[in-house]
């Protein structure tokens, strides 16, 4: 037994050693945690001492003014502000604050389905980081969710010159960034110069703003945007520019590399802020915004924190929502139907079905020229016939369970751009057959498949993104529909990067995709003849000189009414030509925890994420304090 004994004691020795090592490691983690906590506290104390210092300076100035007797109390400033506030972007948030059960507090907990690369503005490109930045950065104008008109947020007032090439914004007074520094017209000028600096990795934003010739701060509160050409969307271009603080970002002009590779350099004047505006990294596994206590606006944002967790697995996300650990769950049509019958879910949540204007429209694009040769889709009658054969209503009903709206054109129903007289193409097989017959397609050999005059069968491939189940189902459904009319469609599921290459090479027969959309959108890049160039978005080689002229005229027209008429004209041509078969706009379906109140559907979608924040949790329902 001697051997056995020594074996056990040796084992004990190793167990003891590994225990000591584990304990040491745990101790290290513990001390590390204390250290980060101390860092946090030091940062907060620094910020507070800065606040105290600046308020002291302010007091001294007031005292000086009082002594010299310069202060006059003639103007009823406060009431003036009140009136202004009602008319600007804060109106709805102020209304929410007047609700009897309004209370500040609690957290808003959301989830992302994939990880974020970076939160740094301009460098980031995905929609998720835009969601976060939406709370932190502010622009001069916002759209009113009810009227869709522009309203001042940072700007008090704005004037457009007669030729439409100059817009002058007057900023509000007393705006501060989240670190307490005041915001002035200089910051607006800086933001533009910063984006236009070649060293900053923001080619996307740079191209977007390339129509702006210059931005100049006329004085501390006035800033002038000059455009190089008249452009219909100039107000949106200038007004939705998110203003970056000069004192925070200017240092990166010397070291652009640091900015370009940064992950969390995010600071602005918005109602929320990153606790530490410089050191967020994706490996935190979550994004957390805290309320900006120095927020300049007339409203106090309701939530203490806004937290995004990253949960990639769909069923894990649903379970987390079931457990009440996140507040919002977005569902697909089929899932939505099932969950509506699930009492555990419906009891604890409110559900919404809405159409967000940016959701965009799906379409099938018909390639009109391939390898330099015209395809059969170059014939307008064939495209019209294909649209007539596409039973959008049934696709919506059977595959998307009715959660959507047929689209007649790229323009959103409800926006001024859309002509209410124009309706989606109906489903009409006999008319389609007549059109195809006219175009020279008929069943010549009796096999049930249409042939062209030279005997070639009417056959084409429909390219679609392989990872979307709903799209796959739709394509299979369409195959059956087309087959009934004697047209052979071959589904071609494709990986995203391959699809991008196909688009670039214009190497496809037909493709189904979706464009994102907006209140007033530009159709130049998709339908203008000049964009058939290599890499252009007119990847179907669609050319119509008449439409080109209308688009050009509309883009250069600053007067809104005249421009809308031009857009209506363009829409009529598009519906007539059917370069795309416009399919539908899909609804967004969401379950939202029932403790969140004041949710409302507006013309901009659900107001859950709108800034200034309008939703809140009544005091008695709050979970986190």
């Amino acid at each position, binding site marked *: 037994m001697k051997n056995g004994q020594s074996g056990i004691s040796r084992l004990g020795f190793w167990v003891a050693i590994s225990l000591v090592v584990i304990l040491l490691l745990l101790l290290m983690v513990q001390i590390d945690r204390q250290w980060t906590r101390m860092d946090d506290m030091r940062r907060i104390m620094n910020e507070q001492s800065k606040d105290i210092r600046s308020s002291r300076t302010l007091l001294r100035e007031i005292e000086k003014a009082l002594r010299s007797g310069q202060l006059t109390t003639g103007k009823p400033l406060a009431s003036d502000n009140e009136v202004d506030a009602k008319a600007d972007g804060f109106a709805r948030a102020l209304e929410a604050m007047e609700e009897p059960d309004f209370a500040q507090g609690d957290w808003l907990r959301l989830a992302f389905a994939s990880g974020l690369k970076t939160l740094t503005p301009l460098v980031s490109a995905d929609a998720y980081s835009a969601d976060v930045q939406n709370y932190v950065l502010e622009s001069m104008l916002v759209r009113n969710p009810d009227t869709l008109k522009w309203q001042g947020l940072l700007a008090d007032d704005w004037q457009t010159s007669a030729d439409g090439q100059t817009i002058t914004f007057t900023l509000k007074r007393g705006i501060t960034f989240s670190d307490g520094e005041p915001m002035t017209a200089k910051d607006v000028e800086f933001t533009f110069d910063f984006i236009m600096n070649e060293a900053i990795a923001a080619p996307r934003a740079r191209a977007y703003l390339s129509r702006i010739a210059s931005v100049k701060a006329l004085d501390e509160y006035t800033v002038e945007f000059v455009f190089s050409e008249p452009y219909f969307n100039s107000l949106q271009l200038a007004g939705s520019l998110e203003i970056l603080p000069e004192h925070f970002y200017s240092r990166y002009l010397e070291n652009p590399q640091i900015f370009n590779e940064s992950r969390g350099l995010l600071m602005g004047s918005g109602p929320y802020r990153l606790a530490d505006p410089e050191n967020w990294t994706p490996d935190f596994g979550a994004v957390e915004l805290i309320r900006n206590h120095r927020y300049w606006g007339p409203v106090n944002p309701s939530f203490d924190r806004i937290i995004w967790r990253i*949960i990639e697995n769909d069923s*894990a996300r649903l379970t987390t929502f079931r457990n009440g650990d996140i507040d919002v769950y977005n569902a697909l049509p089929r899932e939505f139907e099932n969950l509506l019958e699930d009492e555990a879910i419906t009891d604890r949540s409110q559900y919404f079905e809405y159409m967000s204007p940016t959701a965009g429209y799906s379409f099938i694009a018909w390639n009109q020229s391939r390898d330099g040769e015209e395809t059969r889709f170059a014939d307008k009658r064939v495209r019209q016939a294909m649209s007539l054969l596409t039973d959008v209503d049934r696709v919506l009903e059977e595959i998307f369970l009715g959660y959507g709206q047929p689209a007649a054109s790229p323009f959103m129903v409800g926006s001024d751009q859309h002509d209410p007289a124009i309706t989606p193409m109906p489903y009409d097989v006999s008319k389609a057959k007549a059109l195809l017959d006219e175009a020279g397609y008929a069943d010549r050999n009796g096999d049930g498949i249409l042939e062209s005059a030279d005997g070639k069968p009417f056959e084409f491939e429909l390219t679609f993104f392989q990872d979307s189940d709903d799209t796959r189902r739709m394509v299979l459904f369409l195959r059956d529909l087309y087959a009934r009319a004697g047209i052979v469609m071959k589904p071609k599921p494709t990986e995203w990067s391959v699809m991008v290459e196909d688009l*670039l090479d214009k190497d496809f027969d037909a493709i189904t995709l979706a464009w994102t959309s907006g209140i007033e959108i530009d159709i130049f890049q998709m339908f203008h003849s000049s964009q058939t160039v290599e890499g252009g*978005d007119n990847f179907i080689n669609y050319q119509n000189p008449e439409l080109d002229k209308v688009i050009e005229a509309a883009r250069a027209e600053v007067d809104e009414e005249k421009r809308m008429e031009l857009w209506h004209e363009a829409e009529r041509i598009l519906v007539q030509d059917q370069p795309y078969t416009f399919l539908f706009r899909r609804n967004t379906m969401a379950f939202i925890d029932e403790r969140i109140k004041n949710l409302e559907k507006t013309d901009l979608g659900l107001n859950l994420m709108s800034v200034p924040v309008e939703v809140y949790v009544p005091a008695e329902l709050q979970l986190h304090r």
Partner: protein
Amino acid sequence: MLHYLLRRLLLMVPTLLGITLVVFVVMAAAPGGISAQTLVDGMELEPQSRKALEDYYNKLYGLDQPAPVQYLRWLNNISPIGFERNTDGTLGAFSLWKGSDLGTSFRYGRDVTDLLAERLPITLLLNLISIPLIYALAIGIGVQAARDRGGRFDVSSNIFLLGLWSVPSMLAGVLFIGFFASEQYWRWFPTGGLIRRETAGETFLPLFASFSDVVIAAVCVAGLTLLLMQLLSRLSTTYRQWLGVLIGAGLGYLMALNLYGQWFAGLHVALMLVLAMLMRSLCGLQNMPLRLAIAGSLGLGLGLSIAAQLGVTFLQNGYLLDRIWHLVLPIIALSYGGLAFLAKLTRSSLLENLAADYTRTARAKGVDEESVLWRHVFRNSLLPLITVSATLLPSLLAGSVIIESIFSIDGMGKLAVEAVQTRDRELVLSITLISGLLTLFGYLLADIAYALVDPRVSYD
């Protein structure tokens, strides 16, 4: 030996070159390929902005050059000896100590080294817990199954392990979340992540309301643990098994009660039976350390819950408990497959050696059974386990793709998959380079370990 080591190390270089070349070619030849165009993913872009973005990427990564040139550039970048690289993309002077640079990730726009350094600790944490667990349990079960060849334990563990081995981990992960992290069933564990947001501001160790609570909790946990340990180490097998049945049935009843709130139903019986059988076989294990470990964890869990029943209030659960609590499900999901495999491997290799002549000789000369098993048979059966462990080192870092994405853990596995999906060439190449290097080192270590374990093996 030194000679051998040097030769092996030098041989690694061409192997690694081969690996990177294959990966590079596959990445370049993949449909869609890698070009500035594919990096610009935004379909909403206007042509001129797309062009600008493409130029930017071309300049940054040299994507407009022919593929062999790109490969050579990459080789030059990672090699510690080579030409220095200027900021405008051209090559500078030859240098012997320019240092190696793994490059910048396409998708993240950040240094690959940074990205790896961010993800590595998380994967290491998962694997450093699960691998020793797998080995300890697998050896324990495998040895007992081999000793009890053809007996009840052998047959039942065989069936059980085969079952475990057949369950795909994505299914198991989703089921775990659905049953043990969901409000619908037992919400015992979190659905994902490594930490609750609330814990970030809490203490490291659990914080109790008063000192008397600390004492009560300590007494409960320590008392129960010691009692169970004593019982499981002293009692004879039959009594232990009965103890296991009792504990299992009790737990099963509580579990069903927790779900239904009813006093008795079919589910109660089913759960009691299942858990009773499970605990019976666990308590019946012949392996002492394994039994002690089971007793310890049971004691800890039961002790804490009894303390909570007695009115001990946790003001804060603390960082440590929270982290452990988050790790339970991922660790189980990560280990059960490997456990089943290794246990069966241990069993078969032990059986082979138990039937060998030297074992008979050892028994014949009067060596006691324990010594025969652990000093003779077990040592000789280690060789296949070492072979398997050669793949361990790379898997330590590679992480588990499936488990990490189901449980929302940002580790290396998730990074690798994202890199492949988004055609992030620099990242894919770096990850394959590192895991290739580790695989080769793993094999080398395994070869050295052969020589250590088996005196017959020699490399001189």
